[in-house]
């Protein structure tokens, strides 16, 4: 049954030798795959190790999608090596395997997960009972809290979501999707006793999330950290007053109240929406049951893919669509008089603004690249942060491409990846022109 056409595949494997250091490189392996339907990336790596190069290093333990040891970036997208089969990848392209983003590489595809667990621990992922009961709590399976929590406790700590999240790199203190997902399952748990403390510990992080949905898209367990984060945000708004405020907290509440404030803490299904560029907004409020929830999210994600494909281009026209429930408060930052931006050219301008994220203020100084087409009304404002590991990308006017010096990432004038490890196109900003001045929205 498990027969399928034999394939000859080329596999590009990221190599990094800790005894030599350096930036690493890709090694090319070729092999005949007799059973593409039943051969996983893990099998491929095991074969490379046995048949071609015993020094290739990768990590695995359970080999059945249960331990989260084998997360890596497969053809630019995070996934489990033991869950991705050869037949799942386009037959006419090389297979590229590289380590997860945002983690130090130990060797080849093996990363040090310490930063992951550090953030996980900071989010107080551990149960601390309100009172020690002699008997397990009596909670019917259809109780609201269990419906809300659903299968979110099934996270296997694989780190795929964190690797996919571009915000993790911006903010050291950002707990990231997996930790917030776990915090959410405890915040919703009526047996838990330390939720005020936990809410305070993770709240700031929740405002760092840009609702990109990358995490939800890559999670091999089909969980939705994004939904968890939105849940915490709403919970916080409901309870902020009740929590005793630590110093500096006032700032957070004085911010123009995000639209979320008015949303009651009720599981209501929100519409999926989309904003310009790669970043998208979607259902966050609804916590319907499984497995319909999973299907629901899968559907939402597919919808987003379609929306962002369409969205490139007429950016100006793309005002926020649908309820802005999930959007963190955005602000418009003046960038440059339009007259200073030459048509049919890419200009790089430094923007500067203050953010109050959670409890503290910081000044962000950051270049943006404005690509103005010949048709003056048609332009794109690119985020200069490389979508690989966050180095700064610059415009190479000679070659007409955006380049990243760190690992050789290259993007065409539309921001699409043309070379190197970046997993997705350059991010873009929403913008508008007011009184002849270009304004960019930051979150």
């Amino acid at each position: 049954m498990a027969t399928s056409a034999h394939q000859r595949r080329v596999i590009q494997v990221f190599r990094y030798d800790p005894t030599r250091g350096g930036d690493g490189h890709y090694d090319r392996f070729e092999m005949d795959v007799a059973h593409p339907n039943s051969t996983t990336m893990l099998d491929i790596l095991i074969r490379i190790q046995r048949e071609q190069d015993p020094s290739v290093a990768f990590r695995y333990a359970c080999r059945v999608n249960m331990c989260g040891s084998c997360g890596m970036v497969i053809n630019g997208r995070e996934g489990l090596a033991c869950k991705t089969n050869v037949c799942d990848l386009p037959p006419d392209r090389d297979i590229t395997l590289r380590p997860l983003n945002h983690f130090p590489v130990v060797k080849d595809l093996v990363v040090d997960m310490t930063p992951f667990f550090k953030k996980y621990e900071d989010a107080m992922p551990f149960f601390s009972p309100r009172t020690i009961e002699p008997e397990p709590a009596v909670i019917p399976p259809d109780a609201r809290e269990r419906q809300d929590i659903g299968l979110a406790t099934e996270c296997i700590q694989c780190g795929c979501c964190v690797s996919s999240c571009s915000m993790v790199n911006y903010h050291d203190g950002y707990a990231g999707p997996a930790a917030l997902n776990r915090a959410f399952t405890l915040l919703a748990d009526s047996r838990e006793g330390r939720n005020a403390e936990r809410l305070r510990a993770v709240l700031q992080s929740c405002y760092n999330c840009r609702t990109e949905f990358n995490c939800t898209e890559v999670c091999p367990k089909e969980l939705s950290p994004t939904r968890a984060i939105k849940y915490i945000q709403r919970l916080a708004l409901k309870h902020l007053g009740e929590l005793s405020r630590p110093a500096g907290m006032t700032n957070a509440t004085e911010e123009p109240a995000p639209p979320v404030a008015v949303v009651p803490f009720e599981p209501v299904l929100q519409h999926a929406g989309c904003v310009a560029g790669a970043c998208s907004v979607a259902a966050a409020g609804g916590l319907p049951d499984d497995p319909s929830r999973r299907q629901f999210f899968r559907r939402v994600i597919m919808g987003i893919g379609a929306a962002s494909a369409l969205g490139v281009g007429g950016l100006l026209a793309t005002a926020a669509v649908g309820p802005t429930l999930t959007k963190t408060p955005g602000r418009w930052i003046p960038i440059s008089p339009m007259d200073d931006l030459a048509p049919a050219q890419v200009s790089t301008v430094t923007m500067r603004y203050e953010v109050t994220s959670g409890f503290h203020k910081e000044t962000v100084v950051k270049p943006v690249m404005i690509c103005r087409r010949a048709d003056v009304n048609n332009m794109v404002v690119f985020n200069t942060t490389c979508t690989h590991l966050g180095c700064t990308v610059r415009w190479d006017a000679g070659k007409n491409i955006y380049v990243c010096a760190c690992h050789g990432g290259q993007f065409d004038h539309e921001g699409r990846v043309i070379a190197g490890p970046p997993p997705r196109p350059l991010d873009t900003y929403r913008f508008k022109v007011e009184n002849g001045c270009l304004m960019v929205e930051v979150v």
Partner: protein
Amino acid sequence: MTIEKIHADVLIIGMGGAGQLAALNAFDADPSLKILIVCKALKGKGGCTRMVQGGFNAVLNDDDSHEMHLMDTLKGGQYINDQDLAKTLVEQATPTIKEMETLYGCFFDRNPNGTIHQKAFAGQSFDRTVHKGDLTGIEIISRTTEQIMKRRIPVLEEHRALDLLTDAQGRQVVGALLLNMRNGAFVQVQARATLVATGGGPTQYRFHAPGPEKSVDGLGMLYRSGVRMRDMEMVQFHPTGMIIPGSVVAGALLEEGLRGCGAYMLNGNGERFMANYDPARMERTTRDVMSRSSYLEMQAGRACAEGGVHIVAAHLGPEFVEKNFPGMAARCRQFKYDLARGKVPVSPTAHYVMGGAQIDKDCHTTLERLFVAGEDAGGVHGANRLGGNGVCDSCVFGRQAGKSIARFLTAERGAVPHPDAARVAELCARYERPLERSSGERVFVLRDQIRETNWNKVGVTRREQDLSEAIAEFEAIAEACETVSVEGHAAYNMPWQTYIDLLNMIDVSRMVATSAQERKEQRGAHFRIDYPEQNDEQYLFNVTLTRGADGRPAIVRQPVAFVHKSLAECQQYSKRPPKVNK
């Protein structure tokens, strides 16, 4: 050579259910203890506890009783269990599973009225298996790992224990030699008490259910330390491991509930062969009978094209299968098998080691300062383990060990002898040798060989001649190991790790085959083609062994102590008709 040295009060080797509950209970009994956990994988990611699908047996219902759970366990074990251990298992399972919820935050599946749901599992007189969907293990291990974080108990991840260290007389265990797998450096830990909890895991067979990270390390280390082992001939084979050509996933389980719900098995000729082996129970028979029957069909040349037999669940209705076995259906789908509509090739797969170190109910072994819990310990399950009693064993005895170690350390204030430095140096040199050879045997080839030998000769069925041949083959592999060469630097060197795995597999294979020679009868998971009947006249003993001077197992038979239930009671209970579920 200088190696890093660490001092601890308690060294815990392994971070599955047993290791974690031991750490938590030792800590909670005395938070001042310096506890160190080491594990071969990443924090909480290795081991079989995480892979538990079915669930955890515990008496929670007023209509159930510890007495019944005990009798089921003894019946499953065909009377050769250590009755003290079995009694502790069933009695402590109840508080252990409650603490999982009330202290550690697990949330198991509920009945509509909000109490804990318990499901049916083969071989039980009452529905007593606590579960969380079909991913019970993830819930248990994730929650306990977080509790380890909460207590800030240090964990050395990707550090594997190589060998236990003893005092000069070999009477006390004083710590262990570890290898930091990331950079290839050796680490010596000196500890006042050491717990081995690496969770068995018979990956020395062609088909195996545990993750390949496991390699019976604990059992190998224990044997080499000179501790007394028991029941090593008892290896459980699960009847339905998937066959997946060319994939390391081969051997991964399709759960037993499928057969419980009426899935049937076909040989290569499309016949429901169970009619010839157990016409009364057909596919609802016990694990051992089912595995053996499939294996005999395969041996008789009636295998399906993929080399095993087929499991068929389609007649139950695709919606039923998808709804009740979503995880299994998805696992099949990943490999383009259609569990809900087609048939899936399966083979018996090595699942669990019933044997292990001889312990008492407080996890003491025959060596001082050495404790063992979980699958590395023997005796709880006798000749066969019931589904749902495995993770239960690990958690119950991990908890026992933690409490017992804390008590031991309160009473025992003497200094720990230092490990013998010469011995440590010798061990390090021996482990490093393959890295120094520029050419020699290839480790993967040898590991394939040991898996094939075990599968064909020390597997589901056994016979005298095969066993002696196997022992000779193990010795040949051991000899070839002396010339293995491994390329490259020691840091994250996977072939080198495989070499160390292999050394443990060899020692364990020796124990299993030699013990299997000793038991010339059928009992539980152990089946001798040349002695196919169970023989209660002569074989109510346990095969125990220690490592002899020549490195081979030295066997001693120990009669079963019927301390809580008499043989007659056990035999009587076994005659009761099995409970038929659903």
